[in-house]
């Protein structure tokens, strides 16, 4: 299954002088994409900031209702998946194909665990009428702003989860390509570039977790 693919595939695109130049260009392009992603999420973080200043009590009540345990587990899971991802990049650079496959698989599993826990949290919110639609009802806090908290919660975590789903799909593709022997110690930038994306998604969660789950806890 590997022979046809490896023979046809030429890592170096004709418009690059060498693989190193190609790698530098790919890195710059990937980071440029991530820069736009930072500003993309930044807009929602800004909305969060303004509305939390407007409705501090509602936001405190809202974050009290989120499960800190599930949030903690998910943070640990995602950080661990970042570690397995960087190990996949590391082993790919050393040309250890089988180790790379295993680390990519571990990353995929951890990503799916994260999404599974997220699904449990979302289900809980749907059954308790905490989705900001016309059946929205929050016990214990009666005031404006609580709907806004849940709108922002779903916007931020939903977009983050969407990034995770897209990441999982790309991860499967890269893993198959790796098993087919497309990558080597000389050419492995797709794994490298995907790693950048995966770590970015991890960074978004690093900010989401304290802002949504933790702030307002002490009150």
């Amino acid at each position, binding site marked *: 299954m590997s022979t046809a693919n490896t023979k046809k595939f030429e890592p170096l695109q004709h418009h690059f002088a060498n693989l190193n130049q190609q790698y*530098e260009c790919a890195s710059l392009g990937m980071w*440029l994409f991530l820069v736009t992603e930072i500003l993309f999420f930044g807009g929602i973080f800004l909305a969060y900031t303004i509305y939390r200043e407007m409705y501090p009590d509602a936001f405190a009540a809202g974050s009290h209702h989120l499960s800190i345990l599930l949030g903690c587990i998910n943070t640990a899971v995602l950080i661990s998946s970042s570690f397995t991802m*960087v190990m996949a990049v590391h082993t790919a650079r050393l040309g250890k194909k089988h180790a790379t496959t295993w680390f990519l698989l571990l990353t995929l599993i951890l990503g799916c665990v994260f999404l599974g826990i997220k699904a449990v949290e979302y289900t809980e919110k749907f059954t308790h009428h905490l989705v900001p639609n016309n059946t929205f009802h929050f016990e214990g806090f009666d005031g*404006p702003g609580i709907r806004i908290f849940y709108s922002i919660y779903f916007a931020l975590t939903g977009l983050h989860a969407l990034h995770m789903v897209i990441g999982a799909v790309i991860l499967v593709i890269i893993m198959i390509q790796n098993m087919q022997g497309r990558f080597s110690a000389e050419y492995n930038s797709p794994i490298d570039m995907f790693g950048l994306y995966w770590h970015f998604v991890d960074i978004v969660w690093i900010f989401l*977790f304290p802002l949504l789950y*933790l702030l307002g806890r002490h009150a």
Partner: protein
Amino acid sequence: MSAHSHDSQHHGGIGIYVIILTALLVLTAVTVWAAFIDFGRFNTVIALAIAFFKATLVMLFFMHLKGSSGLLKLFVLSAFAFLAVLIGMTLNDYATRHWGSQLEKDSWITRSPHHYADAPASSANAAQHH
């Protein structure tokens, strides 16, 4: 032909990755612990400081920014510079809206707007369902 300038020797190996993993997990525990103590306004500052530190660790070591070109570092810094403009300039407006106003303290950004309090469509709907 080979792309050795971005090879693993350039960015350290498994050891440093394990250290960063441990640091990230410990910092997660610290940020949870700190959230339960009342530092007043500083709870937000502490949470954001830890989050930025964790993000920096991820970018420098997991995303290999440490061994990258100056151009790439400038790119990443520009992202945060524009983020600072986005958030800073907007808050510059919101945080100063009450200046010179007679309503003063309680209207920092109109804490509880009347039009929300008068027509609580959400709670009315919710009451029907329960």
